[in-house]
């Protein structure tokens, strides 16, 4: 069977694994939508005027929609892939796959592609919720920027999950580690504090990691005051750097065998 057909089947399997797991569905779909609804309802109609890098007022709903798109994508990519890969490794699935003729690039591509597809679907869902419930304007002419940001951000968070999953040494630790790290980054990056400027030390720590750059780039694409196409090239470059770093680290450190194997 050709590699493309195997790839398509692998994407089918990976997405079924994701969509049939109540735990993943809750973390990836329910929780982000819940964040949007709760924050949107609390700050409904409010505007903030101290959004970093902006002289204009911005509605909290717009900020939260961009923020929750990012949260959802990080859940669908980084969290979900870390959990799947760590569990499959510890349960011997990766080792078993390794002893078939399945090329490893097909396996990794299928995993990442599935995460990207779910990310796109989730971004559409969250944007739709924002638009319907809180009158958030769609990106309009900034749609290409929103899409590119979405893909680059999702790719970056997916590829970072490959080496990160190696740090998880028991399947039971996969959820707390993946969820804990991303929750920490959401707080650090201001995803839960619409429009508040972060203290400088916090901001400089957050600038090391991809989530804040992803958020800033996504906010520009959603901000109706943005002039031009809305591409935040600096932030996208950082995301790209993380993607490359993740891929290189995975090439060097990815493990197929369970931790117990010597």
């Amino acid at each position, binding site marked *: 069977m050709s590699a493309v057909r195997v790839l398509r089947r692998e994407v089918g399997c990976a997405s079924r694994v994701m969509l049939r797991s109540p735990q993943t569905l809750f973390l990836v779909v329910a929780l982000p939508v819940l964040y949007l609804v709760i924050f949107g309802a609390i700050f409904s109609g409010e505007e903030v005027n101290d959004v970093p890098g902006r002289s204009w007022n911005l509605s909290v709903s717009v900020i939260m929609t961009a923020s929750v798109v990012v949260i959802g994508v990080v859940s669908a990519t980084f969290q979900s892939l870390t959990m799947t890969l760590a569990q499959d490794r510890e349960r011997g699935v990766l080792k078993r796959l390794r*002893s078939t003729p399945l090329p490893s690039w097909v396996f990794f591509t299928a995993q990442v592609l599935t995460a990207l597809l779910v990310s796109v679907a989730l971004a559409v869902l969250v944007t739709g919720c924002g638009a319907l419930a809180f009158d958030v304007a769609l990106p309009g002419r900034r749609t290409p920027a929103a899409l590119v940001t979405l893909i680059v951000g999702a790719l970056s968070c997916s590829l970072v999950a490959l080496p990160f999953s190696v740090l998880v040494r028991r399947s039971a630790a996969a959820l707390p580690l993946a969820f804990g790290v991303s929750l920490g980054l959401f707080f650090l990056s201001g995803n839960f504090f619409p429009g508040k400027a972060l203290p400088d030390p916090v901001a400089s720590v957050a600038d090391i990691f991809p989530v804040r750059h992803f958020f800033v780039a996504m906010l520009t694409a959603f901000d109706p005051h943005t002039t031009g196409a809305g591409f935040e090239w600096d932030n996208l470059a950082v995301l790209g750097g993380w993607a490359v770093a993740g891929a290189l680290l995975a090439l060097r450190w990815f493990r197929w065998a369970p931790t117990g*194997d010597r």
Partner: protein
Amino acid sequence: MVIDDACTEQPAGAPGPAPDGPARDEAGGQAIRVRGLRKCYGRVEAVRGLDLTVRRGEIAALLGPNGAGKTTTVEILEGHRSRTSGDVQVLGADPRRPTREWRARIGLVLQSTQMPAELTVGELVARFAAFYPSPRDVDETIELVGLTAKRRARAGRLSGGQQRRLDVALALVGDPELVFLDEPTTGFDPQARRQAWSMIDTLRTLSKTVLLTTHYLDEAEALADRIAVVVDGRIAAEGTPATLGGRDSAPCEVRFCRPERLDPAVLDLVAASAEGSLTVVGGVVTLRTADPAGVLGPLLDWARAHGTELPGLEVRRPSLEDVYLAITGGLGARRSARRLEDSR
């Protein structure tokens, strides 16, 4: 200490024992050929110079106690594990550098694998079938392992025995030439084990070569054409279930309760004529002899002539268990002695 020398990693391409060319192995009908295999974990030597040959179409069992080095050996043959030294050919290739073509000719059941709980039996078997150049029919393979009724069940809902059967289906769906089964029935209840056995037996009809590891004697006896007993990282004995450890030629025991009228002199005569050794303890006669017929003939004639019987008569060859315990017991004791030495 010897271990230190043996555990020096052999540099790649170093002149080792002259390897046979792949063509010769294939032509010679050998699926697996292992010579002088060693594997060290740090200073511990798990495999200590193991030799093994498995012919094509044969079901061979590696039998041995836990920790004997069975799984380490099999994982080296599967290409999952590096070796310290030795010459290994599996289907004519060195498993150290597995190619996709080579992997396509091998099926395996690892000691513990838990397939993704969210996928169904049918989806998983079809998924694996897609990896191979000429797979078996998916439904037929599921039928072969007796999971047709569970085709739409998710892997997470299968019982332990059913999950293992799914593993076997995944090992077979690529239609491999050689199948590795690492402890395929560990943790099964007796009924599930019987089912697994009859399934593995069908591999014989598919003329697959099978290498099975187990620590169950009855499993090796029921399934294997040939048994290699692994103790302490070496093959301690090798043979068919009937001949292992000289079982077929070992002396038999003829035993019965001595009838009142049987004259001890008669017994002595019978024992002497069959070159047997005689013991009588508490009225129970035990004759150890390589010629049981030569003992039984005169005894039965005597009983018929005197209109009596030989109560509790039995003829016993050493069971596979006797042979196995003799093989592993001796070496096991030596191993403990060595461990003691190492710890000093």
